[in-house]
């Protein structure tokens, strides 16, 4: 038996993230008890940064390793960069929030790193089992993270709900994979595609079932309608830093796997999934935006808004052309900055025992905490797609991809949705600037780490809006191997 070639350099970023995850656990165990453990966060940050610098040099050429189960092509690298940025910002935010809420122990940071590891595997897997392992590593870590505030009933409910429904969705996904294997005899994405093409299996019922199951499984992770029911409750109950991590990281990884599987393994079924996804995209955008209007809890509002954003990204997925795919990459990175930024603002406006997450809590904040309110306004306007912010450029690329592929109605429904979304994003600014507060919010403590995260998110949001060229051309180069 010949041993497969093992190129550890290819998975160096993953190894580093995993190693630092264990290191954080170990340090936590051997450190003296009772202290504030801010250094755990710093240690995690160092791990993320080192992994980041091991990821960058891989961007050059597409390489495959581990018998073709793992690839490090441009597409994977772009996603890994996005995921590492998300992890970095999440850890930064957590260093203020988790300490404040008393959950800043080793497991917390270790689980964030393990979830990051899972996401990175999802982006790189070219074999369905690798993708599935990545997905499970990520999901299980997040189930626990969602329930970290164990004294809080909502957090426990959130974790439980996410776990139960997530387990179901995973089951669907696994069924999909099994059917795919049954019909084609392979789990390698490329082999599946060539087998389907050579045998002309387009009417094979097993494959169609598998297509449906995969759509459900991934649809759950990216929170698309009608598989979105868990999102508001889970986002509301989970610790806010983890909500931010879910809304950006899980979504990014979910899209990475979705695109990889559908574009590489099932391109023959494009007409079938295009029509399904067209409908899902429209429903996701519309339901997300319309329900977001009536939310009074800012975390729920952002949850529905994240559903709507999944819808916008699906617009580009349906377009399915080069500009659409690179648009998705751009969108997810811009979305990471603005969404993490918005959640950072939500966190900074709260304190221990007083979260201030009702929309009405924002009344009068505009002139009391002008910089915080201005940042929040910028992030919300960016999500609404107002130029010259990153969110506008992201939407611009996505809708231009839809127009290029001649999905005119999809583009029109998309922009109309983005006009609807302006209403609820503006509502927060209305409260912040146009109304006087009924209840003073005092004694906020701005610890340095989340403030740094806020500044980084602001820089990212502006940079991607005003100088989008670099990221865009990087995204365009990144998808070369995929399309």
């Amino acid at each position, binding site marked *: 038996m010949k041993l497969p070639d093992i190129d550890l350099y290819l998975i160096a970023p993953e190894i580093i993230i995993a190693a630092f995850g264990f290191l954080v656990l170990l340090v936590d165990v051997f450190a003296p008890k009772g202290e504030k453990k801010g250094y755990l966060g710093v240690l995690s940050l160092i791990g993320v940064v080192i992994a980041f610098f091991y990821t960058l040099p891989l961007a050059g050429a597409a390489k495959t390793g581990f018998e073709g189960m793992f690839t490090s092509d441009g597409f994977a690298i772009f996603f890994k960069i996005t995921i590492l940025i998300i992890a970095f910002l999440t850890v930064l935010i957590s260093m203020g929030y988790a300490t404040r809420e008393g959950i800043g122990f080793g497991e917390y940071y270790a689980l964030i790193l393990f979830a990051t590891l899972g996401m990175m595997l999802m982006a790189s897997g070219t074999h369905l089992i690798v993708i599935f392992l990545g997905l499970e590593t990520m999901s299980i870590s997040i189930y626990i993270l969602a329930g970290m505030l164990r004294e809080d009933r909502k957090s426990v409910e959130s974790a439980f709900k996410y776990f139960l429904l997530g387990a179901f969705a995973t089951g669907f996904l696994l069924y999909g994979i099994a059917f795919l294997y049954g019909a084609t005899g392979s789990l390698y994405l490329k082999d599946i595609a060539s087998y389907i093409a050579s045998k002309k299996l387009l009417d094979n019922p097993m494959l169609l079932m598998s297509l449906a199951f995969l759509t459900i499984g991934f649809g759950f992770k990216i929170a698309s309608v009608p598989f979105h029911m868990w999102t508001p409750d889970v986002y509301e109950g989970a610790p806010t830093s983890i909500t931010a991590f879910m809304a950006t990281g899980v979504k990014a990884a979910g899209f990475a796997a979705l695109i990889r599987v559908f574009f590489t393994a099932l391109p023959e079924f494009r007409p079938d999934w295009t029509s399904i996804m067209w409908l899902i995209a429209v429903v996701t955008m519309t339901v997300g935006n319309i329900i977001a209007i009536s939310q009074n809890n800012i975390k729920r509002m952002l949850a529905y808004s994240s559903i709507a954003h999944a819808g916008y990204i699906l617009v580009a997925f349906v377009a399915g052309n080069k500009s659409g795919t690179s648009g998705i990459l751009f969108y997810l990175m811009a979305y990471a900055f603005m969404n993490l930024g918005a959640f950072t603002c939500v966190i900074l406006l709260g304190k221990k025992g007083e979260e201030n997450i009702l929309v009405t809590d924002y009344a009068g904040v505009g002139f009391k905490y002008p910089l915080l309110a201005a940042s929040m306004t910028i992030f919300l306007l960016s999500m609404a797609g*107002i130029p010259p912010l990153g969110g506008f450029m992201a939407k611009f690329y996505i809708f231009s991809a839809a*127009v*290029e592929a001649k999905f005119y109605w999809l*583009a*029109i429904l998309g*922009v109309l949705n983005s006009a609807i979304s302006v*209403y609820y994003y*503006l509502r927060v600014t209305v409260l912040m600037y146009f109304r006087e507060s009924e209840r003073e919010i005092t004694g906020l403590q701005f610890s340095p780490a989340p403030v740094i995260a806020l500044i980084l998110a602001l820089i990212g949001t502006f940079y991607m809006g005003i100088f989008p060229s670099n990221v*865009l051309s990087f995204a*365009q180069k990144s998808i070369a191997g995929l399309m």
Partner: protein
Amino acid sequence: MDILGIPILSFLIFFPLAGAIVLLFIKKEEIIRWTTLAIALVEFVASLPLFFKFDSTTAAMQFLEDWWWVEAYGISYKIGIDGISLLLVLLATFLTVLCVLCSWTAITFRVKEYMISFLFLETGMIGALVALDLILFYVFWEVMLIPMYLLIGIWGNPQRRIYAAIKFFLFTMAGSVLMLVAILVLYFINLKATGRGTFDVLELYKLGIPMGTQHWLFGAFALAFAIKVPMFPFHTWLPDAHTEAPTAGSVILAGVLLKMGTYGFIRFAMPLFPNAALDLMPLISILALIGIIYGALVSMMQPDLKRLVAFSSVSHLGYVMLGMFALNTQGVQGSIYQMLNHGISTGSLFLIVGMIYERRHTRMISDFGGISKVMPVFAVFFMIVTLSSIGLPGTNGFVGEFLILLGAFQANIVYGVLAAAGVILGAAYMLWMFQRVMFGKITNPKNEGLKDLNAREVITLIPMVALIFLMGIYPKLFFSKMDSSVEKFLKDFKGKVEMKADLPAPKVAEVKER
């Protein structure tokens, strides 16, 4: 031409923004006011060379700057002006100075944020007026929304400011997102036809677009602009926004922001889609006429001075649209001239209403009467502005309206007759309002002790009145700047329309929706 090494148009766009950043670091309100005034004045003075160095013999774009912004997508930072945008840019820098002046005592809280919003707004306005790239234009167009939204929402009338602010934002936004889709469709049609992706309007002007597609695209552009103008029936946001906004907000809204709509038609919608514009000419002219008559009739019934002026805007902008779609030299020239006139006359009217509101804290016509006795200087200014708004010969309003009527009669005699009837209605509601406010006995004792205008207020109004007469008596000064641009606009328009008539039936398949 450069200022401090920066090309003049870029300087004009970014100087107010730089000024706004400087304001962030100033604490004392008095210094903030003076600094903003200085910034606005420098901006105005810096914009004057445009007028004097402008070459009126050519219709080409001048003071051009052209850089790549997002090269991968063909988005460029391309700016320049011709005879049509030149005067509007000057109007914007001019009105901003007056707006700062008239906000001096009217704005009593959060002065810093107010002034920053205003300077930010100026950046957006100038940018939108000089942009020659569709995406750049769209960016500035949207950028204008936020400061105006804040101006209405924070410093507006307490009762309904929030409603008005949101309505303003959503109406404009809803229209413009469809324009964005149309811009993208246009981009890909051009890409297919020429193999070169660009959002440069001067390039896109040359493009021949199949008829069916043209109608859709024109519809999307026209909707965005018609909301902004605002044309009947998309005008409902305007009275609310105007009534609730602070005085300076109303002045800049009437003076410049509404012109973005009419300017959008003449710069983008009509030259890009001439056949569709021609086909829809009757519809737009009729809507314009409805606007003229309806605006005038509703004005007549308004008990509130500011609402009256707001509805008169609907009527006046109807003339602008009518003249533009008359598609002859007189009509188009009159239309552009009327854009400037409306900025000055209606701007002044809002200033005047603001001045009297600051004294009495009411805008109800019935609360006034006999004001001319206690405020004679005020009465003189008010009279001149009223007459200019009516279009009395010798004032600017006459020149514009006369040309528009001339153009309208040539285009269609019925339009001309109806529009002329609108002029009479216009005179009726303005004079009636003036009579009820200014003449007669002082019935309300609160009006007896009113102070006449102070020096600052006189300084604010004098430039307006000077322009009213200058533009009324010596219009050639301004027409000479726009002559060749208007001529080219019409020539290109007709050229493209005729060229199209010879073409075989277009391939409709390209526009099939899915």
